[in-house]
């Protein structure tokens, strides 16, 4: 009973804090309104994008070749599916066409996440170990925003286009009927998958604050991401529940693919939306906790 009362009081005070923050938003943000803050962040984000293009343009030929090698990996991945389905008719409930939709969705999700976050998380351990995080923490902008979104990885560009082409080709060739609701739910679930991937990847990178200098900390999440290439229906019951309720990997690739094929319920979509918000909030909390353990190299 006491625990219940304490928890109720905790959440009540927490909500009061939120109300207070939004009521006095301008005071907390140096006289700037919400729209102004949003505009400022958008301008900074635009600068980040321009800087990334300038950095890649330094070695144009290499950049051009790497874009196509990135595309080569996507081709290898699709050919793997083509080879496997020469010998089998279906994998679980997933036939060749559905599996290609899943494969294209996986390529899309990977391309999007690499584009937005890969360069940033690759440099994460270095930032913390060398003390360069100081220069980010003293800036009048969210440090999580700076650390997560400063650099863009432009090489998956052709892979991204190729994934859309594969998806559209499969849908058109197999006359899979689409309507505006399916398309919107697919795009929304893609957004949810980006938020979930970001949150889990970011939390795994924050381990560097406690474990010390691990250069490849950003690689810890990669096998988990590769796992999402599986249609999660083929997993045994316990794992299915785990990856739906606890660690929602099922919303990264399988659920968006199912939504486009008209196999997804609205309840699952709503659950995915809320779990992505919870994970994002958790990533912010982990970041603030990790900063308490940060020791600058001065």
């Amino acid at each position, binding site marked *: 009973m006491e625990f219940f009362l304490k928890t109720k009081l905790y959440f009540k005070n927490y909500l009061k804090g939120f109300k207070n923050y939004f009521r006095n938003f301008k005071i907390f943000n140096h006289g700037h309104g919400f729209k102004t803050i949003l505009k400022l962040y958008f301008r900074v984000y635009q600068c980040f994008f321009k800087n990334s293009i300038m950095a890649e343009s330094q*070695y144009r030929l*290499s950049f051009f*070749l*790497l874009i196509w*090698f990135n595309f*080569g*990996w996507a081709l*290898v991945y699709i*050919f*793997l599916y083509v*080879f*496997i389905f*020469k*010998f*089998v*008719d*279906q*994998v*679980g409930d997933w036939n060749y066409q559905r599996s290609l939709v899943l494969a294209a969705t996986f390529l899309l999700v990977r391309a999007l996440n690499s584009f937005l976050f890969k360069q940033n998380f690759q440099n994460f351990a270095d930032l913390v170990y060398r003390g360069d995080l100081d220069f980010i923490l003293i800036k009048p902008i969210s440090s999580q925003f700076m650390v997560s979104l400063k650099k863009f990885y432009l090489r998956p560009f052709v892979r991204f286009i190729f994934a859309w082409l594969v998806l559209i080709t499969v849908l058109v060739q197999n006359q899979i009927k689409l309507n505006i609701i399916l398309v919107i739910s697919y795009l929304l679930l893609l957004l949810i998958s980006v938020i979930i991937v970001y949150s889990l990847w970011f939390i795994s990178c924050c381990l560097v604050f406690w*474990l*010390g200098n*691990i*250069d*490849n*900390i950003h*690689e*810890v999440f*990669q*096998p*988990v991401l*590769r*796992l999402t*290439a*599986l249609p999660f229906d*083929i*997993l045994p019951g316990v794992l299915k529940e785990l990856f739906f309720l606890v660690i929602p990997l099922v919303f990264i690739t399988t659920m968006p693919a199912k939504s486009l094929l008209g196999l997804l319920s609205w309840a699952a979509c709503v659950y995915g939306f809320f779990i992505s918000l919870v994970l994002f909030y958790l990533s912010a909390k982990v970041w603030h906790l990790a900063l308490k353990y940060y020791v600058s190299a001065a």
Partner: protein
Amino acid sequence: MMVKFKSFLKVYLQTFIYYRLQAFVWAVVDVMPLVVLIFIWQAIYQNQSLVAGLNFSQMVSYYFLLTLIFQLIYTAGGKNTISLEIYNGQLVFFLLKPYLYLKRVLAEEISWRSIQFLLFLPLFFLLMFLVKDNINLSLNYLSWLWFFLSLALAFFISAFLDYVCGLTAFWLVQTITLFHLKEICYWIFGGLAFPQSLLPAWLQKLNLFLPFYYVFAFPLEIITRDFYFQEIALRFAVQFVWLMVLFLVYKYLWKKGLKAYEAWGN
């Protein structure tokens, strides 16, 4: 000659033990695809007993051995050491020393592989215990002898292929594209993505003349299928020829590269 090499091994082993967490992360990253593939093939084999002439036990055994061989053979010294040191100018430091650069690089490679392999083994045995009923390996002692011999040759082929790509840093500002091309070839021709029996027949024949087959796929096939003596002797001969070719290419690029090399600063 071996005294210097042993000293390098000792120094690098001590250095890499300090980075054991990094090695453990790589070990986990290397084991996870095995887990994914086992689930995929389990679902595939629900509806049929054979795929390209292989049953589920043979497929699981293939991927288990592949993961083990990958840990032992895969080299990254070309990307992480040679091309980086050429690009940063640190190569000058090693050119002034009274030992072969190749000896040092190989010692570093073997030390890192050893630490990572030791950290990988517990995960591997755990997975092996979970799927032990589906592992089916030949107990022919001659096959195991051929296997370890081909593994030794495969390690050096992988190393020299990697170092040849790394030496192009003498002329190219960014060498990452060559390493990507090498990885793609390993995936398709080396057996990393799927067993060679899944490839079309004409591609399987072409593959016998490429070096990538002899890095992962050939050692695996020695254990998982039966060979006639002439077949295995011919393949060993081609493997040895590729090793010699790559070694000579390495020596040629090293000589040419040093003539073109410039460095300045400390």
